[in-house]
């Protein structure tokens, strides 16, 4: 066994009292590829941010090549020979491959401030050749396929002489052929003695590539060992392996037979295929899927934010072309988007303006010039703020920007409650909010169903879905791969459905 090149010892990190990492210890042997797996929120990203100098650990140490390693800035990590290859690529699409690779350290002509273009091209060509990428160094990145861009990132990493390379979901945007090519290169890099950490939800790929596997759950290392001892089943059961806590409020209502939303054969090339679903009155229907499974896109299509090529949507029995969100809202739909800062809130507007935004027309005279009834609107907003226990200063003066994440999310939900929706679509409604606020959101979901609303709940936290939903649909690669009634909820089978098409070689 090779000596360890990088070691984590007792690394812990908390955010606002919530443990993100708890006493994490493992080591990366030199020249090995270590697969790091875990559910969303298990702590993988936090750990990588600590390694990359973006965050500092609360306690614990890291050892790099037998020396203490405590990066304070991302530049420290680069200097120490650690490079990250992210899911979203960090390339300038308007520049050439060579420019991208040498952007922060162009070779100069002697000591002059002028770039040595010939040298830049020559070194880039050499790097590209080592990755058997037959592209001219001056090709614009804009023209490259996703797989080629991924390789340019790797070339950039190699050009810095990095000894440790981290891959975070590198294959999400790649075709099968591109993925295999990437894997060939990863294997070649390993032969050259590079050490790598590979993070992916694609368990089959991890199993195929890794020498060692580490499983994180709730910020703790729950399993670690040589990859040959692992199977997909063992990986999945280790990733979840926890009983659903009794943290979900008891439902007071049962789903009715009435259908509020019906989707038939919805397709959009490359995004979703043949989606069929039915949402009943007073039902919570969960949608589970990995990132990139098409779950968010599906929600956006239902709400009229994105187009689809084929399929029919019926709202309350009436056919609905859902051309625009305005139409959808008129039909009683509401949509809590996954990114509340960009699409949920007017950050620089007051709580009053935010909560009132959707319902403005309902609080105005019906005809031109549509004068607002300020007092009624203010009263309705105040009732929402109070009933949801939104912690805010005076609503007419406090800006959404100055609220905590949980309260911001409650403002977003509150603005939709104002419109008394019959169908509420929620995309990751508890992402990035603290535990207390999470449970309040769960309570709101229950209240809404008690009033007869149908809720489509998208989440990557399986426990949340199992705790709240009457039914869970599972999506993988744009298709529905599982449909589970509450009686048949089982983490492993749901995860299996979510990983469908992700396992094994392609």
């Amino acid at each position, binding site marked *: 066994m090779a000596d360890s090149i990088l070691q984590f010892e007792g690394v812990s990190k908390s955010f606002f009292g919530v443990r993100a990492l708890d006493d994490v210890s493992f080591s990366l042997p030199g020249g090995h590829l270590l697969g790091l797996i875990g559910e969303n929120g298990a702590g993988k990203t936090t750990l990588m941010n600590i390694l990359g100098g973006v965050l500092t650990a609360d306690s614990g140490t890291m050892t790099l090549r037998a020396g203490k390693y405590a990066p304070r800035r991302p530049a420290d990590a680069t200097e120490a020979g650690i490079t990250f290859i992210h899911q979203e690529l960090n390339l300038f699409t308007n520049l050439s491959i060579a420019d991208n690779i040498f952007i922060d350290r162009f070779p100069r002509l002697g000591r002059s401030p002028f770039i040595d273009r010939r040298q830049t091209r020559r070194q880039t060509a050499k790097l590209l050749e080592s990755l058997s990428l037959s592209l001219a160094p001056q090709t614009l990145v804009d023209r490259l396929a996703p797989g080629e861009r991924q390789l340019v990132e790797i070339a950039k990493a190699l050009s810095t002489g990095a000894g440790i390379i981290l891959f975070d979901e590198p294959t999400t945007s790649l075709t099968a052929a591109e993925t295999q090519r990437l894997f060939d290169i990863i294997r070649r890099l390993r032969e050259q003695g590079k050490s790598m950490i590979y993070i992916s939800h694609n368990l089959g790929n991890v199993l195929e590539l890794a020498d060692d596997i580490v499983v994180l759950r709730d910020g703790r290392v729950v399993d670690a060992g040589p990859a040959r001892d692992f199977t997909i089943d063992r990986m999945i059961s280790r990733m979840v392996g926890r009983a659903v806590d009794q943290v979900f409020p008891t439902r007071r209502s049962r789903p009715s037979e009435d259908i509020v939303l019906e989707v038939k054969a919805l397709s959009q090339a490359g995004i979703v295929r043949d989606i069929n679903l039915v949402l009943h009155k007073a039902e919570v229907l969960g949608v589970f899927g990995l990132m990139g499974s098409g779950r968010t896109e599906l929600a956006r299509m239902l709400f009229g934010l994105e187009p689809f090529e084929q399929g029919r949507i019926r709202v309350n029995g009436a056919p609905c072309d859902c051309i625009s*969100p305005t139409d*959808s809202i*008129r039909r009683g739909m509401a949509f809590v988007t996954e990114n509340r800062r960009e*699409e949920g*809130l*007017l950050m620089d507007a007051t709580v009053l303006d935010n909560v009132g*935004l959707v319902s*403005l027309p309902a609080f105005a005279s019906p005809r031109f010039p549509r*004068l*607002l009834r300020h007092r009624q609107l203010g009263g309705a907003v105040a009732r929402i703020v109070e009933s949801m226990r939104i912690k805010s200063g005076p609503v007419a003066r406090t800006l959404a920007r100055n609220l905590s994440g949980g309260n911001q999310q409650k403002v977003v939900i509150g603005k939709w409650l104002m419109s008394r929706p019959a169908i509420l679509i929620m995309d990751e409604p508890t992402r990035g909010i603290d535990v207390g606020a999470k449970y309040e959101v769960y309570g709101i979901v229950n209240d809404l169903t008690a009033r007869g609303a149908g809720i489509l709940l998208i989440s990557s936290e399986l426990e949340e879905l199992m705790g709240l939903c009457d039914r869970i649909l599972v999506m993988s690669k744009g298709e529905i791969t599982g449909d589970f009634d509450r009686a048949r909820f089982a983490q492993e089978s749901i995860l299996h459905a979510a990983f469908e098409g992700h396992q094994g070689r392609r």
Partner: protein
Amino acid sequence: MDSSGGPGARTVIRRLLRRTVLSENFVLYLSLVFFIGLYVFMPYIASERNLANISSNMWPLLALVLGQMFVLILGGIDLSQTSIMALTSVIGAMFMTTQLDPDLFTKSPLWGLLLSADGSPLSGTLLAVPLGIAAMLLVGTLVGLLNGVAVAKFRMPAFMVTLVSMMFFSGLAIYLTKSENIMYLPEGYTRIGSGGLGPVPWSFLVVLALAVATHILLRHTVLGQWFFAVGRSVRTSVVSGVPTERVIVIGYALSGFCAAVASVLYSARLEGGRPTLGQNLLLDVIGAAVIGGISLFGGKGKVLWALFGVLFFVLLSNALSMLILPFYAEPVVKGMVILLAALLDVTRTRLLAREVAL
């Protein structure tokens, strides 16, 4: 160390300063201080004649700034307002003029169609003035609508769209008249520029009505709230069911309408349709808006702010024109004041953000 009273007094002054700077009426205070300061050196500034001059300069400019404010709140900008003024000035005059010099106008593309030595076909009729004004307002609104459609539907940058329409329509105004001013407008029209209801000038009354309507629209209607929402975040507005495209189109149309109102007032005062009307006004409009505190980043604006901005700007211009300065000094000073106002806007936003966070 300071004496025991020192820091206390200093914090009081500091707090007072902060409150003044953060106050909604800051620009009004500034204008008053400025006016009083000028009065000490140039008592003439408070003479009846000069005050009338200041007033008559303020109202048409305020009409323009009100229009610009709709677009600024949306996070856009309308550079074409001045050429809308020129175009509508010329078109309105063509409807109303009673006499044209054939030597000057035979080359106009409209000679023989709309124009003759006896002026417009309507000349002398009762309809000439109302139709002329209606045509001005209609054309202004239409040009604004065109800008709005280009920005909202085709998602072109507002700066580009309105820059192009500034060039195009100012060119069109010059082409229509072959660069000649159209004079001999009926008295019924020119009175708008000089007369009034008793001592109250018409231009004041017209712009007052416009300002009140703007205030009601922005503060008390659904559309007004939508303007602010779109200016703060288009994406959030779309998701929340705001018809963003329609709101943007309406904003630019209103800007065009207000520019036409300004054109009605200016043309009446100058007693002619001028293809070069408003050529140097763009800086004044944007400057007054920025000085008033209407943010170029969108989402902020009030009628009162527009009024204060215009007041300060007109006072400044007035003072500068009375000082005997070399011709280049005026734009230099104006530019610097606008720059300071923009800086103040940024500082204020930062201070306010901190205030609420505390």
